[in-house]
């Protein structure tokens, strides 16, 4: 074991370096390689990082072992930000998810991106994303987290607008970018505040005993700042609007970035700064509230979506809400547990959706699908597993993690039982809309366009599906109420804080029972409703107002467009008009005069320079008056 710990300390940097090497290689040589090679190299880079991480993780698997830090080089020592890797249970879990699921998605992409003109460029971005995400989760200080945070954001924009010739994709990239700036603002604010109080950014010093430095109010303030960051990155209310649009990118990229890994960075950030949130009940409650509302709201919207990826996008938002509820209930291990299981089954769902889209010739409307199970058996059956997993049917993965979050929230009592109730309603809705999704796509009569020829995808795409389906089925066993393996494994990372545990005894059974009955009811209702055309139509008529509202996302985008973007744009326009009338006008007017008169000097006496002097003189006057009034 000690040898393995030494191995981890010596070689863990490879986990970041290997995808980086893949990125550098493909960036310079990728476009000159024959098609699959660039993808294979990228997959190997990611896969070998996974192997290194797996070996290095072995000493920690049994739990109870503290993390080690490995300093690579001095980055900014004056602010306590070295380039330093923290290899502790929390980062191990995240690393294994990122590299493991990431590798499968790389592999799948080799098939999915076949024939794309920018094949190698796509894998360049994918490797760069893996590098950045690993920097984020392996960081041992907030500055490095921020570096990774910005870099994954950049990769995300690059991949959303990968097909930038499509206006939709370009717009979506822009939107994701703008919305995320708000979240980043929160992050920087928190960063500056942390530094102002601690004089360092290093986790070693900030997170050991923050209570000695921060009073409760400041802990709340920093917590809220990080919550804003998480709201942006993890697509919570009110900033979730970018994520559905982000589906304009290639589907495997959506699976990796906008479902399994990057969007969970906000949850990770909160879990990592657990010691700060531990000081402030207010901040935790704010987190839990945002999460619960988001989970419910997104689930409602998901019910009315007709785009095969749209449902999954809102479902991702909803599930992220669960994770946020988890960390907001101080059940940090439960939140991370759900993060891991969700990473597996949501990646699976997206890859399956990609497989369907691929075989239907880029058709994404579920109303034009149906009956695909026969044509695509592998995709269909793996999707069935994934649907049941996310719906929370025991003993699949989603059940265990969701139950643990809800149980912990209930167990925390008081206000959190209200959160729990919202979570249960969401769970029923989740089971319902996911069943609807599955039925519309895979069961029933074919409703394809006449030129569609659905067929099963090639092995390079179905292999990851099968592997992920196995994962989605069994990964839940790492943490069951009988054997809290994962919680035990994570505990060293949350040692100093008051971790909220799930309920025990009879209560636990009752809670699990309620959740299970809810999930089964949701699945049954969804199946019965959408399997039969008559019932489906009756249901859709009955709930038409709700469903059509949900289809449009209840007009939130329009609201933002009208009430937020338009006034801002008008302000910018106005200042632009000022600029063009007063400043540019002077330039243009002058240029025009120059052209007429034929000399440069004459028009200068025509008075246009005056407008330039206005600001100068006015500013001078203000300063002079200020100084004279106040004295020096």
């Amino acid at each position, binding site marked *: 074991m000690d040898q393995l710990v030494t191995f981890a300390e010596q070689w863990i940097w490879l986990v970041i370096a290997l995808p980086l090497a893949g990125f550098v290689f493909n960036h310079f040589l990728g476009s000159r390689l024959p098609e699959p090679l660039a993808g294979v190299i990228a997959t190997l880079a990611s896969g070998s990082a996974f192997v290194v991480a797996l070996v290095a993780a072995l000493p920690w698997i049994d739990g109870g072992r503290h993390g080690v830090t490995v300093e690579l080089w001095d980055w900014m020592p004056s602010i306590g930000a070295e380039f330093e890797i923290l290899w502790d249970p929390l980062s191990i879990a995240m690393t294994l998810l990122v590299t493991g699921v990431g590798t499968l998605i790389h592999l799948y992409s080799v098939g999915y991106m076949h024939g794309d003109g920018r094949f190698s460029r796509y894998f360049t971005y994918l490797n760069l994303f893996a590098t950045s995400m690993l920097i984020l989760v392996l960081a041992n200080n907030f500055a490095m987290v921020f570096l990774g945070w910005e870099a994954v954001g950049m990769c995300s924009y690059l991949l959303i607008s990968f097909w930038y010739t499509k206006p939709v994709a370009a717009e979506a990239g822009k939107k994701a970018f703008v919305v995320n700036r708000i979240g980043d603002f929160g992050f920087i604010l928190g960063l500056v505040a942390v530094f102002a109080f601690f004089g360092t950014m290093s986790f070693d010093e900030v997170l050991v005993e923050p209570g000695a430095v921060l009073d409760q109010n400041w802990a709340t303030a920093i917590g809220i700042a990080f919550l804003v960051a998480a709201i942006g990155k993890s697509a919570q209310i009110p900033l979730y609007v970018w994520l559905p649009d982000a589906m304009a990118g290639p589907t495997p990229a959506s699976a990796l970035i906008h479902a399994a890994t990057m969007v969970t960075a906000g949850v990770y950030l909160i879990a990592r700064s657990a010691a700060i949130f531990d000081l402030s009940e207010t901040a935790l409650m704010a987190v839990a509230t945002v999460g619960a509302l988001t989970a419910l709201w997104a689930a409602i919207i998901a019910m009315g979506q007709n785009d095969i990826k749209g449902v999954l996008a809102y479902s991702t938002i909803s599930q992220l809400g669960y994770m946020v509820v988890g960390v907001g209930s101080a059940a940090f291990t439960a939140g991370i547990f759900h993060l891991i299981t969700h990473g597996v089954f949501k990646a699976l769902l997206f890859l399956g959706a990609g497989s369907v889209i691929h075989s239907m010739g880029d058709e994404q409307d579920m109303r034009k699908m149906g009956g695909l199970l026969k044509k695509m058996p592998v995709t269909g059956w793996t999707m069935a597993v994934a649907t049941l997993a996310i719906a929370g049917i025991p003993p699949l993965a989603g059940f265990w993690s969701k139950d643990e979050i809800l149980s912990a929230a209930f167990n925390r009592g008081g206000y959190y039982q209200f959160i729990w109730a919202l979570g249960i309603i969401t769970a029923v809705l989740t089971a319902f809309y996911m069943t609807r999704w599955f039925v519309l796509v895979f069961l029933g009569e074919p409703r394809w366009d006449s030129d569609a020829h659905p067929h099963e995808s090639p092995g390079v795409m179905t292999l990851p599906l099968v592997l992920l389906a196995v994962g989605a089925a069994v990964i839940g066993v790492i943490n069951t109420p009988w054997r809290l393996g994962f919680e035990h494994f994570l505990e060293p990372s949350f040692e100093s804080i008051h971790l909220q545990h799930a309920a025990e005894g009879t209560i636990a059974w009752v809670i699990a029972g309620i959740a299970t009955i809810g999930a089964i009811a949701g699945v049954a209702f969804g199946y019965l409703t959408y399997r039969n055309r008559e019932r489906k139509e009756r249901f859709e008529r009955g709930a038409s107002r709700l469903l059509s509202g949900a289809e449009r996302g209840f007009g939130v985008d329009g609201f933002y467009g009208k009430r937020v973007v338009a006034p801002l744009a008008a302000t910018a326009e106005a200042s632009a008009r000022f*600029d063009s009338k007063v*400043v540019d006008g002077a330039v243009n007017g002058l240029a025009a005069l120059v052209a007429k008169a034929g000399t440069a000097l004459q028009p200068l006496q025509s008075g246009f320079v005056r407008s330039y002097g206005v600001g100068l003189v006015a500013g001078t006057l203000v300063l002079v008056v200020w*100084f*004279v009034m106040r004295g020096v």
Partner: protein
Amino acid sequence: MVETPEISLVAILPELALTVGAVVVLMVAVSSRRAATYLPWIAGLTVAATGAGLIAQYNDVAANGFSVSYAGMIVLDNQGIVIRTVMLAAIAVALLVGWRYVTGLGTRGGEALSLVFLSAVGFMLMASSIHFMLLFLGLEVGSISLYVLAALGQRAKRADEAAMKYFLLGSVASAIFLYGVALLYAGTGSLTYLGVFEFFSGDTLVFSDGLLSAGVALLFVGLLFKIAAAPFHSWAPDVYQGAPAGIVGYMGAAAKIGAIAALLRFVQVPFQSVIESIQVPLAAVAAFSVVLGTLYAIVQQDLRRVLAYSGVSHAGFLLMGIATGGVAEVQVLFYLATYVLVLVGAFGIVSLLEGSGSAGSPIENWKGLGRRSPFLAWSLTVFMLGMAGMPATAGFIGKFGIFTRAWSGDLEWLVIVGLLASVAAFFFYLRVVVAMFFEDGDGKTPKLGWPAGIGIGLTLVITVGLGLYPTPLLDVLTAALG
């Protein structure tokens, strides 16, 4: 006999080297038919000699500590050396990336070169001056050289216009500054920094003297104009857009270096004891610059104007550090050094694409550059990210340093304004990046010569290198100023 003031050659060695270089360049330019072949050698020798002068100065300070000479007009200390080094670096990179412009001027290339050196002399003197008259002289020597540079070798109306406006408004600002000096003298009876400092820390009754207060305000206005802080920025967009692209990056950088050097000394010595009353207006100007620069930059359609307005907001960030009152020297100097280099580098790329002349640089022209010239496109991307303050670039370290200092200096509100603006700023910095990589266009394909390649590569290495590993520079700065 009049007492001979103490003369310290070492205190002015870099300026001396540059002056000699400027003279030699002019003489060679008019007396030799093959002047063009000599120019690179003279330029290189001058830069090398200036560097040697700086090393001599550094050794002198290391051995003897700081020293004052020329009848209390010039100080030789580490802060001045750092600023002059930044200036030298700016010259070196500017000449590398703008060399094509210099040679393109034919026999007037010598004039451009000589003006670059002379302006540097002026702004370097501002850094070592501890006397208001010498400060004014430095300001004028530097500024007048820049006015001429703006107009040099141009037959374009837009350029004449820009140069004329720069000159007219600059003269007004100089006059305002000089008037401030006069009032300051009238009020305090001293023109040395030390004398003014003693005056302010001695007699508290005078603080209500209206003329003196107005004088101090005017002094600051003069310098704020030079760094293009809002609302004294109106010249910047036109000049940045209209002046020859080959040299405009240097023009912006040099004026900022000189004026920031002077402002830094202002809050350290003469106005140190009254910093509380100066802090608020400085912080207000900083906030105004940051917000206005960012807002205007967002709506610009021309990369040169974007860079001009971004320069306004960078002036605001620098002022933010200065407003803390001399506790953020290291951060301000780090920010200044990294910003000016990136500015020079970015304009170098503009001149490679648009030619060295006065053509504007609409975003339209940048579309598809990522395909036509990946090196330049990626370099510009890094520069833009650096200006925006992306982590892993020097710009982030600089902004972060200033923010934290301002925060602990009780300027929290200013930090929040700065943060908001720098978040919004990503938008316009990345617009050109989007145009280069995500939009198709068939503009010109720039030809990259080796001097420009070296200059841009150097800036690139510095920007990324100091972003990943800023420790050496921060250590040097801290040791030098600590």
